């Protein structure tokens, strides 16, 4: 087996990326909503349909999708640059994020021509927002144990079950759900399929769940005899696990696994610049900078693999674990720093941003595969399992 550790060679973004980057910066300067830092600290969890539509009008939603479906047909490097710029300023990208990142590519790879022709242009126009229906109350890390079931009935599918932790489900048009279509729970990965579910169908109840920060960014969904047309099935029946696994490389490979706390970090640095920064704080800034520089190299290496059509599942797990650890360290270090002098004057905007990020930070290493699962994936990649 090729040595996993030989896969991390530095790669540079192609020269054209820099021209594209300047265009993105201009767009952001013109169109980024004026939001306070603690709101922008939500990063890619913040939902703004209007912003997503403006981005789509510019042709930048579904960036890597083929132009015949309304995509810009640009490469993975260009998408990396776009994401990096949007994440750096905490642009509210959640509405189109999932569709752009994985639902669109999934439908492109496994969908029928009709499905591609229907959904992909709508993703690219930011008219169709997608969420992921994977986790259930009894199926988190053990995804193969999902109990939601779709039964074939007169050529159509009848869906019963529930999903939970569905990000922005209450604001999306479609969910792509992993459900059992044949066999029993003991069959695990066998007998699972994925469906595109129109969330306006009868029998679907969606309840937002309030998170610890006071936001409602995720939901539970109940499916009660929901009738899905045959055309809702993606790819083959029983192909669900293969599809979900293919999505994972996309889900785990992007720079959003490095930049979730970056708005907070920039705000702290701004505060340090406005006064006289202590030596200890300077060293912390330096350490975070060194980590970010290195993580960025690793993320670009993964992007190059995606651009070459590879499937860097293990490499993505490695970078995601490092990246989320970095993201989580930022509120931790800033809490320490700001608490160094309890009598110092308080920057309330920074304080609110810090409070939000430190509360939500545990989610960074839960979403998209928990830390423990990722370390198991890496161990398998090392030949230990």
């Amino acid at each position: 087996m090729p040595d996993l550790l030989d896969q991390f060679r530095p790669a540079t973004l192609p020269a054209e990326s820099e021209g594209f980057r300047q265009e993105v910066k201009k767009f952001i300067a013109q169109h980024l909503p004026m939001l306070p830092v603690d709101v922008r600290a939500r990063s890619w969890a913040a939902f703004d349909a209007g912003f997503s539509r403006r981005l789509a009008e510019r042709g930048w939603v579904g960036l890597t999708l083929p132009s015949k479906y309304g995509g810009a047909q640009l490469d993975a490097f260009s998408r990396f640059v776009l994401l990096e710029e949007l994440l750096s300023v905490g642009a509210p990208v959640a509405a189109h994020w999932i569709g752009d990142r994985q639902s669109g590519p999934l439908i492109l790879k496994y969908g029928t021509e009709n499905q591609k022709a229907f959904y992909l242009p709508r993703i690219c126009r930011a008219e169709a927002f997608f969420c992921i229906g994977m986790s259930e109350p009894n199926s988190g890390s053990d995804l193969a144990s999902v109990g939601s079931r779709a039964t074939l009935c007169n050529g159509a599918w009848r869906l019963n079950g529930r999903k939970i932790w569905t990000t922005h489900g209450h604001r999306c048009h479609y969910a792509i759900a992993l459900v059992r279509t044949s066999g029993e729970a003991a069959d695990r990965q066998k007998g699972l399929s994925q469906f595109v579910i129109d969330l306006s169908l009868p029998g679907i109840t969606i309840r937002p769940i309030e998170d610890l920060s006071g936001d409602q960014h995720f939901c539970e969904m109940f499916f009660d005899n929901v009738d899905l047309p045959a055309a809702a099935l993606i790819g083959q029946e029983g192909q669900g696990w293969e599809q979900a696994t293919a999505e994972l490389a996309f889900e785990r490979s992007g720079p959003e696994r490095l930049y979730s706390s970056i708005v907070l970090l920039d705000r702290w640095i701004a505060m340090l610049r406005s006064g006289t920064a202590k030596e200890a704080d300077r060293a912390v800034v330096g350490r975070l900078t060194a980590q970010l520089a290195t993580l960025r190299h690793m993320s670009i290496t993964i992007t190059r693999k995606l651009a070459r059509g590879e499937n860097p599942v293990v490499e993505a797990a490695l970078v995601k674990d490092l990246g989320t650890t970095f993201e989580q360290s930022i509120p931790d270090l800033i809490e320490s720093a700001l608490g160094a002098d309890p009598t110092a004057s308080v920057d309330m905007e920074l304080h609110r941003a810090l409070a939000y990020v430190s509360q939500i930070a545990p989610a960074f290493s839960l979403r998209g595969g928990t830390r423990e699962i990722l370390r198991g994936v890496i161990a398998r990649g090392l030949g230990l399992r």
Partner: protein
Amino acid sequence: MRAQGAGAARLAELDHGVPALRQALEESGFFEVLASEDENGAGLEMRQFYPIVALCGATAVPLPLPQTMVARLLVPPQHIPQGTITIAPALAESANDEIICRLVPFAKTADHVLAIRGSELILLPVASATMLPGGVPRSLTASLTWQRGCGRCVAPAASVDLQALGALLHAGLIAGAAKRVFDMTLQYANERTQFGRSIGKFQAIQHQLSVMAEYVAVIAIAAEAAFQTGRRLPSVLACAVAKSRASEAAQLVAATAHSVHGAIGITAEFELQLYTRRLHEWRMAHGSEVYWNSILGNNVLASGHALITDFVRGVIA
């Protein structure tokens, strides 16, 4: 170097010197790889130099081979001495003009020391120095003092950030040694059996190895990235990133290796300690992560970038 491997390192550490190895490398022309073809060198670029530095780390080469090679970029050909050259992290002058270089890496197998004295880059012959016993067994590091008047100026000090260059070379050495240590640890986890199975089957061990692998990857990419320059020497900031990450991660790599190996890992006979001792020494050489984090932090705060991402993109080798 692979063939010599640990054997040469052990000989050097027992003060038996490595004259044969030194001679073989010099005669083969390896010292000249970075010198231009006009100067009988191989004309290698910085990016081609990284694998050589990493290999020196992975095979615990007991000579300051990377430093000797890089000296060809710093010292005009007419001043290049025979033998090996190392880099001093510091030079101080005492009241009676004695020159003191403390904790010089590879001092025991170096023939010359490159150092900055004021506005000059100077070469000092080790043969003329008094070696101060550090008392650290098996270490090739030593402090050296010279009488006044020693040392020959070979270039202006401004021609190179010697500390950054020394740090970068050590980041490359750490990268090679860390990978070697990881490979040894993975092999041990697969071979050592307890409770009826290899210890690598236990989740606790697997997760330690996964994290170790993450840090080995971090060191390697940070070090190699800093060598990807088209110029004569890499940028100070890229060297700072490389040494910061390599120093910080070296500690975790060494500690995890010993954790997995158990008692056998802390014997002199077992090869692991050759590398983990080096990881610790090299972590400190030419500044640990603390030193380079300060430099980076000061640069960030002084820069006009509102976005740290823009700053980071500008840190190119």
